[in-house]
């Protein structure tokens, strides 16, 4: 009985652990471009072809690069904000897709692994995903990776968003039943077509 009480106490205390935030993450500038800024962004991969390895970015020395982001509700919430800010929402809507594929379902054309998602954002993909690598801070890309994976419930429930500040258009990320990714080595949409 004593042991059990002790254990419960330890567990309860562990539950009080505060989520740690990385002070090094820099919020994006709120300055808006004037007039008609030309960006170097373009649909599809740019420069060197995407390698099998994740792009050469400064990874945390220890552990997996995505771990700190995927365990942080703040990072996921930042990812949600950046998802709007960098127009991810324009193509993928609030997860249901449009010009780009849906992100709230269980289909992952290029893989659901955080490293793969990161690679999709950094290097772009041939059917129109622009390459954001080198154009936005890598920490923000990891925040986006965490948010994108949370859209289909792949992150722990306690870091997923509970509500949106905008018009309600989808069940909250937290309400999503984790959708086990399928079609991991799937066929890219272009291969469904002739030519």
């Amino acid at each position: 009985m004593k042991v059990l009480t002790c254990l419960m106490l330890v567990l309860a205390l562990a539950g009080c652990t505060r989520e740690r935030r990385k002070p090094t993450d820099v919020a994006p500038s709120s300055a808006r471009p004037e007039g008609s800024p030309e960006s170097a962004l373009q649909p599809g991969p740019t420069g060197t072809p995407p390698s099998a390895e994740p792009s050469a970015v400064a990874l945390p020395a220890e552990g997996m690069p995505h771990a700190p982001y995927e365990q942080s509700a703040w990072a996921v919430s930042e990812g949600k904000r950046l998802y709007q800010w960098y127009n991810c929402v324009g193509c993928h809507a609030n997860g249901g897709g449009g010009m780009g594929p849906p992100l709230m379902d269980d289909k992952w054309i290029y893989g659901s692994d955080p490293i793969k998602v990161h690679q999709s954002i950094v290097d772009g993909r041939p059917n129109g995903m622009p390459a954001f690598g080198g154009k936005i801070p890598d920490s923000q890309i990891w925040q986006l990776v965490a948010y994108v994976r949370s859209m289909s419930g792949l992150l722990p429930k306690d870091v997923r968003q509970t509500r949106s500040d905008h018009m309600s258009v989808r069940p909250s990320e937290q309400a999503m039943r984790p959708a086990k990714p399928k079609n991991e080595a799937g066929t890219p949409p272009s291969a469904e077509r002739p030519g």
Partner: protein
Amino acid sequence: MSGLSQSNRRVIVCRVVLIMALALASVAAENPAPSKDGQWLRPAKDFASTRYSDLAEINVGNVKQLKLAWSFSTGVNRGQEAAPLVVDATMYVVTPFPNILYALDLAKPGAPLKWKYEPKPAAAAQGVACCDVVNRGAVYADGKIVYNTLDGQTVAVDAATGKEVWKTKLGEINRGETITMAPLVVKNKVLVGNSGGEMGVRGWLTALDLATGKISWRAYSTGPDKDVLIGSNFKPFYEFDQGKDLGVSTWPPEAWKIGGGTVWGWISYDPELDLIYYGTSNPGPWNSDQRPGDNKWAATLFARKPDTGEAIWAYQFSPHDLYDYDGVNENILLDLTLKGQKRKVLVRPERNGYIYVIDRATGEVLSATPYVHITSTERVDLKTGRLIYNEDKKPQLGKVVRDICPAPPGAKDWQPAAFSPRTGLLYIPHQNLCMDIEHVEANYIAGTPYVGANVRMKAGPGGDRGLFTAWDPVNARELWSVKEHFPVWSGALVTAGDVVFYGTMDRWFKALNARTGEILWQFRVSSGIIGQPITYRGPDGKQYVAILSGVGGWAGAIVAADLDARDSSAALGFVNAMKDLPDQTAKGGTLYVFALP
């Protein structure tokens, strides 16, 4: 016989001859001499864009016997919006991305493939195509099939051999430009406009030389008059369209450079006035708070000289557009008697919910009559020409404004109407949709969407999302209207047999009595229809009707692009109104050709 007198005999002979003559005459009325016009050379059939064929072998009496003659898979499972073409004994079909052109030999049984041409457009173009990767068809002129590819190129292909004659790059996908429209050839000029009104693109119409593919002029939809090809002959009818460099001064500084006004719809031509007519898309972004001003020349109808591109008049349908009411719909050129006067008019079922009848020489609006339930605007002021908005329904930043009708695809989107000179009616495929909208701040990042709105579309009053309406443009009234479950996203075709054809997204290809709207025949195809029906006379002398099936487009993106219906805002909010479409149709891409047995 012998008992009959000579005179009696003469009378009888006369009577027999008379009866025979009458019988012949009535036969002639039912089966007019074979028309010379059995081909289909451009999507809208003629320069006036009537989509009317004078073939009448298939008519109200026999259309119920229509049978499938043959079919053909395009091999592409995206939205098939194109009209097939028929030139002599060959049919030409263009697919959505990757924009394959097939030539089918109609002289042989089952129409075998003659050749195919593959332009191999850049795959990345798919990522900047707002509303599925559609193509609205090709055009035939001077031995060439000319059409556009999604990655912003125009190609001319030898109609006999399938060899590329020329290819000209007109748009930059890096800036969000694609091309989905069907070109029109006028006086050896190929007229092409860009798409990308949701991507911060600057709209234009470009004329290329039919023989060489060289650019002869380009008219921008925004910017200074010299870029818009506005000169001393420009005489807009209304005061609010008059002034210098309005394409700059009606925008915040520099915003016109990314302001939309793309030209992805239809072009008509009046050879007598020597004017082309076309409209421009919505201004960008959708968030109208970011672009105070009238935003010229977005959502505008232009009349231009085809030789030089010089603008003669313009009329802005939706100044400072609040609802993505693109002004790109078809312009049907008719000579109507209005209030006892013969008028050369342009009839236009506009996205904003009004059918406009416009004097096509001057740009004067003769009437603008609602043809759907409208809450977004009050009326068109015929004195000033201005569309009067409903203040209660103006979208706002960070606030949801509800029940705005029509929704962004409007009362009618790209899907072209037809006009029959026999019935005097316009046949309009369209939709009944409303929306809730919330503006959010839009960031311009080149090559990504520039929208700034959360949208949730839904069925309008009555619950049916689609309508097929017969409209009398002289008296500005509806004659009949057929309700459809889903938006009618296919074009219309009407024939001298008084039969009108269209297809539905739930896979029916239908023939109606053009006078009454009574359904006479229908056929269930494999995938939903969003294409343009055509009719032609085959080398065997028989009349055929052809349609592409294959659901998609903006309305069908939920199926064509496997979107997730749990997100109401998917496909710019269209998914919310189409959640049950996947129950009715899967993807497809098949051409169907019908004939009488």
